[in-house]
């Protein structure tokens, strides 16, 4: 069952959740605070030395992967592409291939291995601006 809680409540509960395995969904608490640094519950002062590891708290169980349109609104990528993904075994899977591509900065300016490459009928995904979602 999901409780409706305010941001402040989330911030306040965060410490307890981390320390004692509080029943609140810790994912939610962590997702709502910007950096995992939460105010000290007693003084309401922000503690700057709680954690710095960018990976967030390590003792949380993974959730099922978020789905576009349901769990989040995808970003818009002008001129770019969203890297396709699939769910396999409860994990969101992306496949990046590093390879030579032909790229157009503009129709009049292309980059390729050689100017002889005039057809540019490549089916490759342009490597620039691949966007991953979760």
């Amino acid at each position, binding site marked *: 069952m999901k409780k409706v809680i305010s941001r402040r409540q989330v911030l306040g509960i965060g410490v307890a959740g981390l320390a004692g395995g509080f029943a609140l969904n810790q994912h939610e608490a962590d*997702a709502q605070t910007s950096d995992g640094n939460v105010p000290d519950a007693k003084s309401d002062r922000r503690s700057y030395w709680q954690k710095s590891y960018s990976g967030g708290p390590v003792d949380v169980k993974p959730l099922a992967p*978020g789905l576009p349109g349901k769990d989040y609104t995808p970003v818009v990528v002008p001129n770019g592409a969203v890297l396709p993904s699939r769910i396999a075994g409860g994990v969101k899977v992306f496949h990046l291939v590093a390879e030579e*591509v032909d790229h157009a900065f503009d129709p009049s300016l292309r980059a390729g291995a050689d100017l002889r490459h005039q057809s540019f009928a490549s089916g490759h995904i342009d*490597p620039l601006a691949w966007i991953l979602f979760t």
Partner: protein
Amino acid sequence: MDGVGGLTQPYIKPGETVKYEWTLRQHGTQMFHSHHDEMTQMGMGMIGMFVVHPRNSLPEYRVDRDFALLLSEWTVEAGTARPNTLKMNDFNVLTINGKVFPSTAPLVCKRGDRVRIRLGNLGAMDHHPMHIHGYHFRITATDGGDIPFSAQWPESTVVVGVGQTRNIEFIADAPGDWAFHCHMTHHVMNQMGHQFPNMVGIKPEGLDEKLRPLLPAYMTMGNTGMDMGQMAEAMPMPKNTIAMKGLAGPFGDYISMGGMMTVIKVRDQLKSYDEDLGWYQHPAGTVAMKAGAADLARDGIEIASDGKDHRY
């Protein structure tokens, strides 16, 4: 996982497939790139953005338009097609999501939309002060995470340093075609060359005509401001080369910008964000125009009758 070839993992050799598997416990605007011979591999485009949305997002997180733009820079000598990643300065192709203006797609918004633009910079050597015309915005997040509301500040130009990301947010409450560009002047030109004499202030009247019998394509550059688009029409260009600046604009003149520039198009009515909107129709009285004699007389501004400046 967040590593460097040789330090935290072996290299990924040609033909190999390597698995990175981890749990995302944070959200934010992040980036990814090759970490082996970065000069070459990132310089050739092995870069991307990695956007992580929060679970059960708060209302203030939700926006109508959430754009992701990755900035980079390249050196492609005029007439060639192979980026030269050995170049350390004088990059001549400055890109947003791999495109230079006028090939950058506009950011289309409906009036009143809440807009977030995520900017990342994985170019080699330059930071980019990204400037929006018509709006101010708040800087709401860095690559380290969200900035608390009380610590966000208003800006009209946000510096995105190499390796950094910045989220900016604003309400698109003013319709128009608003330029959005890097404010470094050399970053809003395409394939610029620098091997020219300084012609600023020189009055080369008649010089072009005298030289043309000898050099048919000669055109003196930069004495009153170059119209690069027009120049591209007049001058022969090497193969696979883009004009330094230019797109024929709505007023008959070329838009004298290129490179790291795009346009935010905001309209009162939209059928679709993918619609080809054309140029903004400016309401009367909202466009700079020639000052008439009556305007000048009213404001006490005297212009010589021949239109020339006789102060010198």
